């Protein structure tokens, strides 16, 4: 029986989608810019885990 995904799992699923989309963008553009890609990945993580001041 499929259990409904918890909120956490749903959030993780959405974040994974964004991360894969980011990887796809860099892959198809032949961009070999690891630093830039990881900076953008941190932005995704930080949007998903806002601090109280955000």
């Amino acid at each position: 029986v499929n259990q409904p995904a918890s909120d956490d799992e749903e959030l993780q699923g959405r974040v994974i989608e964004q991360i894969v989309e980011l990887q796809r963008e860099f892959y198809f553009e032949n961009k070999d810019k690891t630093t830039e890609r990881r900076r953008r990945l941190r932005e995704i993580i930080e949007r998903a885990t806002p601090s109280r001041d955000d």
Partner: protein
Amino acid sequence: MWLEKITVKDFRCFYGEQSIDLSTDPEKNVTVVHAENGVGKTTLLNALLWCFYGMTTARFEKRDDLLHYDAIAEGRHSAFVEVLFEHNENRYRARRYAMDGAKPEEYREFTIMRLDQGHSVTLERPDTFINTVIPKGMASHFLFDGEHAEVFLGEDNRSRIRGAVQDILGCTLVETAIKDLSETATYYRRQMPTTRASANMTEISSRIDALAGQIQTAQELRDRLKGEIEVIEQQIADIDENLRNSAAAKALQSQRDSAARELARARKRETDAQDEVLRWLGDNGRYLVSTRITEQTFEHLQTQETKGRIPSPYNEEFVRDLLDMGRCICGAPLHHGTEAYASVESMLQKAANATLRSRLSSIRARLSQLKSERQSAPGKLDAANKRLATARQEISSYEAELAEISGKLAGIDLDEIAVREAKRNELRKTANEKREQIGTINFRIESAEADKGNAEKELKRLAENDADARIFVRRYSLCETLKGRLERDLQEEEKAARGVLRAAIRKILEQTGRKAFRLQMTEDYGISLLNEAGTQLPKSSGENQLLGLAFTAALVEYARVRQNAEDYRLLKGTVAPLVLDSPFGQLDEEYRKTTAEYVPRMAGQVVLMISRSQASGGVIEALRERIGEEYALVRKNKDSRGSRAREIRQFHGKDVEMATFDDPFDGSAIVSVSAS
């Protein structure tokens, strides 16, 4: 994708503008390029890769020297490769330039034009487009280098095979995401100690880094040892094959094969019996320790039932019916608010309902089962233990037999049998030592992973108590969780891919091989062929030569199957031409013929590059009906012939001189030798 034409201009050994038209006829889907070594086969193969992705294979020497020397000497400063192709019913022209002395960013290096009737449209993002046609990671797997097919048997084959499977599976995005998440998790962890948290956190964080380093080093060492063991196993397989073919050792080796097979079976029985004992203890151990409790509970239930107390002497449904009807079974009326009504209603507190009855019934059933299992339990354990003892006895007996055979072989002073046997024993000893080392390393890895896990928990606990560090803990944890999810997903996808590839390779080997053998592909991508006795086939066997080709064919087929894959995390597969460079390796004539018959079925469009010796043994005859275009690469020399003999080959009744002299340039020329 279907390739229509490749044009090269002043590219490497190809002087001036030269082209090759590829067969696009599905019935005659093979284009053959005849060329001896050093005339430009590898250059032609690399021209395709370079045009589409600006990359070349690892074996392409002097990869920055792309312009033809004589062209430079004559004042020309650019070279190009142009590929005309069809994709999804559209035609395209891709062209990549190399300019002498200029950096790629200083000119428009790569363009793709879509050719519509009468006009053309330049695509804005040619790199993106070509990656959707054939993802860069998959491209190199459509180029098979037969002279280096030993990659499938070499020491580092596991990681390369895994890489190939992952490339065709299209998990490049997930893989990069996992690496990025790992780096990002480390980034957040390192941020923690820079907050107001204690110095203790700095120390724990450094310890985690050190443990991660230790784990990685140990894993690398373990992989290296596994590769070394594989090489040793191959050497042992080669010795065994040699002994099988030696008249003096044949019978003993056959006896050894048989004993080794029996030993493997006995070991399997030992493992099964051991598992059964452990499983039994897990499942039934409680029956032994719970004897008294089971007895007492069962007796209590029985007594209470006899007395009518369990379940309750009356049912909830029955009491409710009386109250609803407003009449007791004795005939007295039951009106709401009367003493009689309250008295009957109070019975509901003790009444048994359907759920209670069902629970009691299942408790009774479980207790009965416990009793009967307990009675039969020791018998089952005894039987498993007996099987274990028998298996161990058999193992000792087969080991003794193998040692005896080895002793006899070591005593045969003929055909270097004794020397080979001594070498074999030495190899086995070394392999066992390495296996022991792997055992120790595994223990070290497990222990370091446990320490790392504890240190991470401790760090999280400390950071949770520090307001400034808490946010980094959340981010770190999220990265780790996502990484874990993606790793699990990837493992599942790879498992499925391995199954598909294994089946495809088996099918191909069945169609091309002539002996019965079994393909083995382990979870960590160790790939080998076993004979009926379960021992590895020697590296030099024709079957192993075929393995590389079968693996490539299976990858190409899997890429085709995946061309419409829906998973957003994975890149779609593709249909692309297969370029085979000297695919027949050292195959004997019979194998060449059956393999050549299979080549046209390996992909929709095939380009086959072969030398004179590769083309012998009925290869061309086997392919004849499927060849659409045929070319020869001719070596051009500025030097005069001198005393060199003429090298002439005949194609469809026409003589073609494969090396010419007193030419205006040094290099290669593409000459059509098609039947038409």
